[in-house]
């Protein structure tokens, strides 16, 4: 069907003959992620980052003398496909650890399979809170949960913007819904009234009816949780309608990747977004990874890439420490992870009702002159924030 699956079939056919010879000195890791369909953009960022990480690990001699042999399977962003891929990996390929996936819906499906078959699963960039709240023993999450995605933005709002009213727009996916619910709770904590909370479908063309309702409600802050295309269209159309909120804020994902700035152009200016990572952080290896990625692909990677990059180091670390390479031994090794990565310090904890969850700091970025700048928390800021932002009429 897709170019990739053709290649996979091809490789598989050859693999039947080639594998026995190769199996001795490589560790095969098949990573499910979306390479076609709507979330393909994120899948691509992550695939490239995994590849960079594998190269570096292998250059240093691999894991216990074995090189990591990466391959990818396209789950097209559909939970049923992701599920089928992972069932195959565990049942017939006997892969002792699963890493990958992107959308929350897919990660949920994969987590259920992994738990059922007692195989550790490392989640890389799926945010829905629910996934690590189910008392799964074998499911680990490296990225922050959705409830905390907005932490830095919330503290920015609390300390700088001090809004009285807020409008929340979100896309009707697991990620969008949980992000919006988290912001609704946070809004109460800094005393802002939620004047409007509305969802939309991905693929929608015209947001102006929704946005004119937002305009009529005159919120201080407009907070949106969306993937890249909707983020772009919403900002463009908000500019068309001249909706002058004190601040536009986004909940990571679509607001935190370079495509957002490319698509929305000047309409993206001054938009603040939550993010889990920026290339400007001073974690060990963060800048090196970002520069390497940029040199190769032309853009800085988003947090998705950094998390994927780090996930492979976490995996390699667990594999190195594991007594043997059975799913249970790897699971125990993962649980004991205590690693400083380019993405964030990684440690899987059980707290706040989550299990095997890595809690790490989040950041707020702002688009300034067509570039993402880290603005909050102040200790990590690469540029001072711009607030209050000029109204649409005042710009040029």
């Amino acid at each position: 069907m897709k170019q990739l699956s053709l290649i996979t079939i091809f490789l598989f056919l050859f693999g039947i003959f080639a594998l026995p010879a190769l199996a001795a000195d490589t560790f095969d890791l098949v990573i499910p992620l979306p390479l076609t369909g709507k979330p393909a953009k994120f899948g691509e960022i992550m695939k490239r980052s995994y590849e960079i990480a594998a190269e570096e690990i292998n250059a240093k001699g691999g894991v216990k003398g074995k090189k990591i042999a990466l391959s990818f399977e396209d789950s097209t962003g559909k939970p049923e496909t992701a599920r089928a891929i992972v069932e195959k990996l565990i049942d017939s390929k006997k892969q002792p650890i699963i890493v990958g996936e992107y959308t929350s819906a897919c990660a949920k499906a994969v987590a259920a399979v992994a738990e059922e078959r007692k195989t550790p699963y490392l989640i890389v960039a799926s945010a829905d809170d629910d996934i690590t709240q189910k008392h799964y023993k074998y499911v680990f999450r490296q990225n922050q949960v959705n409830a905390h995605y907005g932490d830095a933005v919330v503290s920015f709002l609390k300390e700088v913007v001090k809004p009285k009213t807020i409008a929340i727009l979100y896309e009707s996916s697991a990620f969008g819904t949980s992000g919006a619910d988290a912001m609704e709770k946070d809004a109460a904590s800094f005393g802002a009234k939620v004047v409007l909370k509305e969802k939309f479908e991905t693929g929608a063309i015209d947001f102006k009816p929704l946005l004119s309702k937002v305009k009529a409600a005159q919120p201080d802050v407009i907070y949106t949780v969306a993937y890249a295309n909707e983020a772009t269209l919403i900002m463009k159309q908000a500019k068309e309608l001249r909706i002058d909120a004190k601040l536009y804020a986004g909940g990571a994902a679509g607001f935190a990747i370079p495509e957002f700035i490319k698509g929305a152009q000047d309409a993206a200016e001054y938009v603040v977004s939550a993010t889990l990572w920026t290339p400007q952080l001073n974690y060990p290896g963060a800048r090196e990874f970002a520069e390497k990625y940029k040199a190769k692909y032309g853009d800085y990677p988003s947090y998705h890439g950094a998390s994927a990059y780090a996930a492979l180091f976490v995996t390699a670390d667990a594999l190195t420490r594991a007594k043997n390479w059975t799913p249970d031994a790897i699971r125990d090794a993962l649980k004991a992870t205590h690693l400083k990565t380019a993405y964030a310090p990684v440690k899987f904890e059980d707290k706040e009702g989550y299990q095997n969850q890595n809690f790490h700091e989040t950041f707020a970025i702002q688009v300034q002159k067509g570039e993402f700048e880290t603005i909050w928390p102040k200790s990590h800021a690469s540029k001072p924030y711009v607030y209050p932002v000029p109204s649409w009429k005042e710009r040029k």
Partner: protein
Amino acid sequence: MSAIQLEVLLQTLISGVLLGGLYALIGIGMTIIMGVMKIINLAHGELMMVAMYIAYVLFSTFHIDPYLSIVVAAPALFLLGVGLQKYLINPVLKVDSILPENQVILTVGIGMVLANLATIIFQSDYRQTPVSYSTKAWYLRDYWKDSPVDTSLSLPWTVSFAVALLITGGLWFFLTKTDMGKSIRATAQDLDAAQLMGVNVERMRVITFGLGSSLVGAAGCLFIPIYYIYPDIGGQFTLISFVITILGGLGSTVGAIIGGLILGLFESLTATYIGMGWAPVGRFVIFVAALIFIPGGVASLLRSRKLGK
């Protein structure tokens, strides 16, 4: 009704009409193919995708404005449509098969091939043509200072709408005033009679498929400045044009225009007054309601009121 509520209503209606006009152009392409061929072309959205990619390539390599690329994309799509009809669909029409509507299934296949070709060539990235005027708009208050409401009219949306109107007007002229247009209508109305009167039916079929394709191709060029593309974009537009075709009455051009406007307005009003998440539900409610209450579509209503032909 306060001024602000009025402003929301007006803005919603403006959005609805502009969106509806674009929907109508997509729908017309499908409906004229339906009229002459008696089949639903389920590769319709994918043809639009092809045109959008043509516009994208022209924009990114030669910096040609997406609106100007209609001049290239529409004829290209005409040829593509003609080719598909001549070498794929016509041969299948002649073959007896167990499946009664195997041409329809063929169009599904064509759509899949096109979408996957696009994936191979362009990857599944989202692409846009970031034109400089993409967020330009006219504001009522800029022209009338003390206006109680401040509605805005987006430049690219308005241009797209106007061009859609022009194309529709041109199509109407072609279908009613030219010999070939009349032959196409004759073929749509009664195939046997048209054949007896000396109309080259097979040729009309080929031309109609080309015409329908180039219309949706033009629609693709009008959409790209306000939207984005990726290879699997076709499905949602096939669906929209299918709803419009049913709503408007199979094969009726006037019906498709009215159907498109109804759908656009309905979606906008649902988004404002019920919730944007409900828009797809609204679309299917209209679809089912049309099938149950006006099975012949808007066209049948026009006919019974003696408004249509």
